[in-house]
């Protein structure tokens, strides 16, 4: 069990070391975004590990965000209470939505969750405008209040809060992945019928993953609302959702570390490419295509793939090399 512990420790140490290297607001902002996305992609992968590609994952982030923003601005609750309430709202809505969506599987599941996410987005955008702010969005959301003598009005403090949240979430999700839950989840992904006949209640497992993932997404959403202080329905639409899928799959869904690798690398890359304007998505698109063609298991599987390739090369050193795949 040294593998998972070492991975979590690496993330925690890196997160802790960053402020020692730089306190530049921009870097802290990007780092906070990465950590926030990390909680989202890792909880998204939790669901992928049971074979579901939940395109409504970002909606639960939105539900947590709007719930907390409203409870703080309208009901005067403290962020520290709504952090849990928002996540619980997301999780409890996930129970009925998940129960409905999980009646179908494969591409139908993909598309029904996409339909759900659009319903949620359009709902925030077009209904109860007085409450959700409609197309103008919700503004004036305060930063987290003081707690235990700590103030959270600086970028650094918010970064620290997100880092703690992220490490706790990563720790829990990694532990789950290396536990019996992860074992069973992977079994469901590989052959759900066999798992079912071996006594695994597949539906309940998938729903558990769905609800747990939504809880984490809700948590990230609450933080997002008070970090950005502005909410707009498009932040929880198809485009940001698609980015989560991209981060996760590029990193590799086969390993619990895949989403971490994908999220960190891709977010940094997209920041570096920001000046390229629409060339950015041109480059990004090309990278996606090439990665999926030449590293179908994701970036995290590259080292072992390269090793395998090298071994094969060495074995058939005299034979001419096959097409492509040259590292």
């Amino acid at each position, binding site marked *: 069990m040294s593998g998972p512990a070492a991975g979590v420790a690496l993330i925690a140490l890196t997160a802790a070391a960053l402020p020692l290297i730089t306190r530049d607001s921009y870097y802290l902002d990007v780092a906070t975004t990465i950590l926030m996305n990390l909680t989202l992609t890792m909880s998204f992968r939790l669901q992928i590990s049971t074979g579901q590609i939940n395109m409504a994952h970002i909606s639960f982030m939105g539900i947590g965000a709007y719930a907390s923003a409203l409870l703080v601005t309208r009901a005067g609750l403290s962020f520290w209470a709504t952090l849990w309430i928002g996540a619980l709202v997301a999780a409890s809505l996930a129970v009925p939505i998940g129960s409905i969506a999980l009646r179908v599987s494969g591409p139908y599941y993909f598309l029904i969750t996409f339909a759900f996410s659009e319903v949620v987005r359009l709902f925030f955008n077009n209904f109860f405008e007085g409450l959700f702010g409609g197309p*103008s969005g919700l503004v004036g959301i305060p930063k987290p209040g003081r707690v235990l003598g700590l103030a959270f009005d600086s970028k650094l403090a918010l970064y620290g809060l997100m880092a703690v949240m992220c490490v706790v979430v990563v720790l829990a999700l990694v532990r789950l992945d290396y536990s019996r839950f992860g074992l069973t989840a992977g079994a469901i992904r590989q052959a759900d019928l066999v798992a079912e006949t071996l006594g695994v209640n597949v539906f309940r497992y998938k729903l558990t993953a769905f609800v747990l993932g939504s809880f984490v997404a809700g948590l990230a959403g609450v933080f997002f609302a008070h970090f950005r202080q502005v909410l707009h329905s*498009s932040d929880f639409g198809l*485009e940001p959702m698609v980015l989560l899928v991209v981060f996760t799959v590029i990193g590799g869904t086969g390993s619990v570390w895949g989403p971490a690798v994908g999220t960190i690398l891709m977010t940094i890359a997209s920041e570096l490419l920001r000046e390229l304007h629409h060339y950015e998505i041109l480059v990004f698109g090309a990278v996606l295509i090439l990665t999926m063609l030449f590293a179908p298991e994701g970036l995290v599987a590259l080292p072992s793939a390269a090793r395998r390739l090298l071994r094969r090369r060495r074995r058939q050193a005299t034979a001419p090399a096959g097409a492509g795949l040259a590292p």
Partner: protein
Amino acid sequence: MMRIRASIATIAMVALVAAGIATRGAAQDKTLTIGVLGPLSGGAASYGVELVRGAEMKADEINKAGGLKVGNDVYHIKLVSYDHKALAADAATAANKLVFQDKVKYIIGNAVGATCNAVQTVTEPEKVLFSFVCWGTNNLGPDKPHSFRAMLSQWEVAEPFYRWVKEKHPAVKRVALISPNDTSGKDTNTAVVKALKGLAFEVAADEYYERGTKDFYPILTKMLATQPDMLDVAAAPAGEAGLILKQARELGFKGAKGWTAGTNPFTIIGVAGKDAAEGVWSPTNINVKSDFVSPTVRRFGEEYEKRYKEVPGVIAVANYAAFDVFTKAMQDARSLDTDKVLAALTQKPFDTVWGKLVLGGKETYGIDRQFLYPVVISEIRDGKVVDIAQVLPAALKK
């Protein structure tokens, strides 16, 4: 293919020239970095692209003339522009990059309402001067002293526009409005409805459509059933406005047409067709090719078309003017300090491509941060944009 190669060649040339200027100027000149934000890819890309181009035109003009002389220093202007894909969260990150990474003190240009709110959470605490063409009413206010709107908004044009309609076309009694379902659309319709009620018009319909809609038959059927005398494609962007007019004509609409928040008249004429666009009045359209505009504007239009192969819309002109105003204010202040520039901005009128321009808007927003310049009402006649009247905002009359 040709096009791509040409673009690559252009980029290479610009890079070379820029590098040349940078190395040559390094000895005596200082660099002033100015930021531009906007959606530069996806469905709203045309807004952002026009913002960047408007800024680019002015920046190059200044640099070619030897740089910007502020006090005793001469500055070479460097533009940094980032794409936020019309997403609020992304806009906040991009603004952070401009403010903290590029150390920008001026962000001239942004569009799409929700992103403006997000950018302001970064610029206001850092006292970065931020001008935009977003139409959200709440983007200006006493709590946001560093934010400016560089373009007339619905609150400035709706009332004078409909007052003009009432005087010149008394037959128009019932007006139907349609806007996209976002901040600018909502706020535009709100302002227009207020103006209409104040002027004793009847509001026949007040509708919103989802951005990206192409088929307006369903919504138009409902709107036209209310028998309006005039159809105002209020805050619809040019392409969608053109489709609305075209399809309204197909459905038998023959009344008057307005475009309170008009942007690019050439696109609306092209998309709607000459017949369907005939007679559209707009208080914000700018026709850079019109005989009525000043030679500076015409030159700007020609230059722009030569450079980008597209006709500039009002957003390109607005950001060009905004750049002009801010750089002039820096010269007036003889400093780049934002507090001093802020003071200079509100002190006196500026001469711009729009004509005389002042910062006003206190009665609407509680603070003078709205660019005010003459409202020119135009009409589309036979596929051409003709300026037919000029109305001065109250603040300019003084």
